[in-house]
C-alpha cells in the first residue's frame, strides 16, 4: 500500500472529523477495524468502546447534552437492538447522532445468517425516524457531508451504511467474522 493513498477507513474518518464530530463509541466489526484504530489513536476525540449499541446511544445522548457532536461505529446487526432507544431517546429528545454502520448481509456476504438483518436494516432505520444513506464507494462520501449537515441542522439521527464494496472487500470469508 502506498503511503500517500488514503485507505477507505482514513477517507471516512477524515470526512466525519471535518464536521467537528468529536465524541465516539464503538462496537467491534472487522470492516470498521481501520476506523476503530484511527479513533484509538486520535487524542482530539473522546472515545470508548461499549458493550452494546443501545448503551452507546445513551452515552451519545449524554455527550450531546454536554455540547459534543457524537457518533457511533457499529455493524448493521446492532441496529436491531436499539430501536426503542432511537425512538424514545434520540428521536424524542432530538439528539443528532451520527451512525457509521458497516453493512453485513450486503453483496458479497458469505454468512447466510447475516442476510436477513442486512436486508431489513434500511427499512427499519427509516421506520424509526433515522435518515439513511448507503455509501457504496469512497467516491460517494459526499453523501456523508450532506447527511451530517442535515442531522446537525435538524437535530435528528442519521445513519450511513457501508457495504463490502466500500471497503473493497469483494469476497467476505468466514475468517473475517
Amino acid at each position: 500500500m502506498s503511503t500517500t493513498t488514503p485507505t477507505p477507513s482514513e477517507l471516512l474518518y477524515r470526512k466525519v472529523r471535518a464536521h467537528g464530530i468529536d465524541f465516539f463509541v464503538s462496537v467491534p466489526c472487522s470492516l470498521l477495524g481501520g476506523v476503530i484504530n484511527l479513533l484509538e489513536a486520535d487524542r482530539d476525540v473522546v472515545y470508548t468502546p461499549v458493550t452494546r449499541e443501545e448503551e452507546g446511544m445513551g452515552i451519545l445522548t449524554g455527550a450531546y447534552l454536554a455540547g459534543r457532536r457524537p457518533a457511533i461505529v457499529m455493524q448493521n446487526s446492532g441496529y436491531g437492538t436499539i430501536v426503542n432507544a432511537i425512538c424514545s431517546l434520540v428521536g424524542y429528545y432530538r439528539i443528532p447522532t451520527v451512525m457509521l454502520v458497516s453493512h453485513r448481509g450486503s453483496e458479497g456476504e458469505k454468512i447466510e445468517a447475516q442476510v436477513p438483518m442486512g436486508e431489513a436494516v434500511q427499512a427499519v432505520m427509516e421506520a424509526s425516524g433515522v435518515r439513511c444513506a448507503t455509501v457504496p464507494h469512497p467516491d460517494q462520501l459526499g453523501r456523508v457531508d450532506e447527511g451530517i449537515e442535515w442531522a446537525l441542522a435538524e437535530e435528528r439521527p442519521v445513519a450511513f451504511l457501508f457495504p463490502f464494496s466500500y471497503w473493497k472487500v469483494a469476497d467476505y470469508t468466514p475468517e473475517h467474522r
Partner: protein
Amino acid sequence: MRRFEATKKVMETIGDELVVCNIGHPSQELFQIRDRPENFYMLGSMGLASSIGLGLAMSQPRKVVVFDGDGSVTMNLGTFATIGRVAPANLVLVVIDNEAYGSTGFQTSFTAGKLDLAGVARAAGIESVTVVDAEDEIVPTMRRVLGEHGPHVVLVKCAAGMPDGVGVIPIDGLAIRDRFMATVRG
C-alpha cells in the same frame, strides 16, 4: 424508607451537580421533590439512565449524579463494564434497589432473588461501591462520595411502594432538554 424518601435525602446533598433520572415514577417523584434545570428526566429508554450520565461525565467537568433503579440497571448490566473501564472521576451512580419493578406494578425484580448488583459493580472494576440500608446514612454517604474522586456506585436498599398523588411531569422532552443544555453550557 421507600424510593421517595431516599430520593429526598440524596437531593438534600445536591448543589450544582447535574442529575439524570430514571424513567417512570422515579422521575415523577424527583420532579415533585425538587425540580431544577440541572435535572434531566429520561422519560423513555428504560435502562439507559446510567449511560446518559456516563456520556455527560465524559464530556464536561461537572459532577453527574444518576438515579437508576435495580430493575432498570439490570436491563443494562453492560453499563458497569463500561463505567469500570472509562472510570470517570465525576460520576456517582445511585441505584435505588427496592427489589421490584415499581413503575409497572411492583413485580419482583432480580435483586429479590440472587442478583448482587454491588458485586457486579465491584467485579466490573468500580472500586467505590457503597451499600446503604438506613435513611440516616444517605446524606453522609452522598457527602463523602461527592467529595472524592469516582466513579462511585451507591446502592440504596429501599422498600417497594410510592406515595399517592405523584403525577406525570408537565413539561415536554424538548423543554427538559433545552433548559438542561443551557445550564450545562453555564
